[in-house]
C-alpha cells in the first residue's frame, strides 16, 4: 500500500538559515530518500518552490496569487512511500527531516486502483 507524506513547515525558518545550513537539510532529505530506497519503500518524492510562487485557479476561472491554504506552515514537498500499514507509514514519517526540525507531516493512504 502506498502512503503520501505531505510536508508542512514554516518556510521563513528555512529561508532564514545560512546556505550551509540549508544544504545540510537537503543532505538529510537525500539520506532519508536513500534509506527509503534501501528498504524498497521509496516510490517518489518532490520538493516544492516556496508557497509565494503558487497560483490558484479558482472555480470561476480566476487566477489568484499564493497557495490555497493561507497558513503559518506551508507545504514544502511530498514523499510517496510503500508501507504495510498506517503505523509503518508513521514510523517512516518520524524519520523524516521535516519532523525532526519541528514541522508537521500529513500522512494519507493512496488508494490502489489496480493498474500497475
Amino acid at each position, binding site marked *: 500500500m502506498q502512503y503520501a507524506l505531505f510536508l508542512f513547515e514554516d518556510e521563513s525558518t528555512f529561508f532564514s538559515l545560512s546556505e550551509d545550513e540549508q544544504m545540510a537539510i537537503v543532505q538529510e532529505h537525500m539520506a532519508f530518500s536513500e534509506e527509503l530506497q*534501501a*528498504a*524498497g*519503500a521509496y516510490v517518489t518524492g518532490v520538493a516544492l518552490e516556496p508557497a509565494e510562487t503558487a497560483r490558484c485557479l479558482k472555480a470561476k476561472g480566476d487566477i489568484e496569487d499564493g497557495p490555497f491554504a493561507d497558513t503559518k506552515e506551508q507545504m514544502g514537498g511530498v514523499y510517496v512511500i*510503500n*508501507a*504495510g500499514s498506517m*503505523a509503518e507509514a508513521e514510523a517512516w514519517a518520524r524519520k523524516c527531516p521535516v519532523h525532526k526540525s519541528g514541522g508537521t507531516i500529513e500522512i494519507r493512504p493512496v488508494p*490502489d486502483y489496480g493498474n*500497475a
Partner: protein
Amino acid sequence: MATPEPSETDARAAAEWAARTCYGKLMAQLTAQYSDVTLAEDVLADAFASALTTWPERGVPENPEAWLMKAAARKAVDAARRADTAARHARAARPLMMTADIAPSERDGPLNRDRRLELMFLCAHPAIPAPAHTALMLQTVLGFTAEDIAAATLESPAAVGQRLTRAKRLLAKGRIPFAIPPDHIRQERIAAVLRAIYAAYTSGWENIAGGADPETGLATEAEWLMRCLIRQVPDNAEAKGLLALILYCESRRKARQDSAERYIPLTDQDTALWDEPRIAEATALLTEAGKMQVPGRFQLEAAIQAVHAARRQTGRTDWSMICKLYETLQAFTDSMGARIGYAATLLQLGKVDEATDLLNEMPHKRISQHAPFWAVRGHAMKTAGDRDEACENFRHAANLTRNTATRDWLLAQASKR
C-alpha cells in the same frame, strides 16, 4: 545414501522430498544471488527437471540440496548466455563470479545460511498488494503452482496467475531489496508476514475438502512456515501466538468429523480425540508469548482456543472468559471472523439481541458470501424463535460451503423444526 540401482519411483520420491524440504531455502538463496524472483524460479524449476532425469540413472546424490543448487547455478549461466537483454546478463553474471570465488568445498556443502526469512519479507513487502502476499509466499517459499494455489483458495487459476505476475512485476519495478527490514519497521513487517501465513492457514481450514491436499488444505504448509519463521524471530510474541493458534485448531482435526465423515461442531466434539501433544505445545508457546507482554490479535485468538482446549480437563467451557477475550480482540482487528466469533459467544451466553445487533451491523459487502456469518445468524434467529429466517440463513450458509460434511450439517440445521 547413493543407491546403486535406484528406481524411477525412488528418484521421484527423493526429488519430491527435496522439493518439499529445500525449495524455499534454494529459492531464497537464488533470489539473494540474482535479485530476480522470476529468474530464480525458472532456474530452480529446470534444476528439478534435471534431477528427475538424472537421479534415476545415476542415483540420488548424497546432498540433494547442494546438487540442486549447483544445477540451478549452471542453468543460470545458460539463461544468462541466452538472455537477450544486457541487463539480465549483467545481473546473472555478477553473482556467478561471486559464487566462483567460494572454495569448492564450501560451494558443494550445505547452504551456509537459511535466507527464507528474507524471502518471506520480500513476498509480504508493502509495494505488493496484501492479497498477493499469501500467493507469492506459497509459490516462492513452498513451490506451489498457480493451479495449486487456486485450488486451495477457491479462486480461478487465471486470476491467481495474473496476481502473481503483477506482484513479480512490482517487485522488479520497485527494486525491492532482498533483506531484513530496518529496525523501525521490522515489527510491522513481521506482522505482514504473519497475516499472509494466517490467510494461508484459514484458506486451508475453511476448505478442508477443497485444498491442495484433500485432508489438510494449506494447514500443514502454514504450520511449517510458522515453525520456519519462529526459528528466525524467536523474540516475536505474535509469531508464537499464531503458531499456538494453528496448533490448537489442528489438535481438533480428528474430532471434527465422525466415522461417517459427518461434521461435528466444536461444542459437541469428543475431547478424547483431541491431539494432546499439539495442545501442550500450543500452551507452552502461548505462555512464552504472554511473558513478553506484547499482546496482539493472534495471541488473543490462541487464548480463546486455549479456553476451548481446557474443556478436555474440566469438562466445561468458560464462555464468559471467551466473551471477555473476544471483546478485547475487537480492538486489535476488524476481521469478520473475530466479530462472528464474538456474536456466537454472546449467543452461548443467552444474549440473543446483542448478538443479532452485532451481526446485523456487519457490512453487507463483506459478509454476503461468507458462510460462517450465515451459519451464526441462523443460530441467532433460531434462538430468537424466528424459524423461517433461521432456516433460510442455514440454507444460504450451506450453499456457500464447499465442504460436504459441513454442508450436510448446515442443511440438517435448516430442516430441524
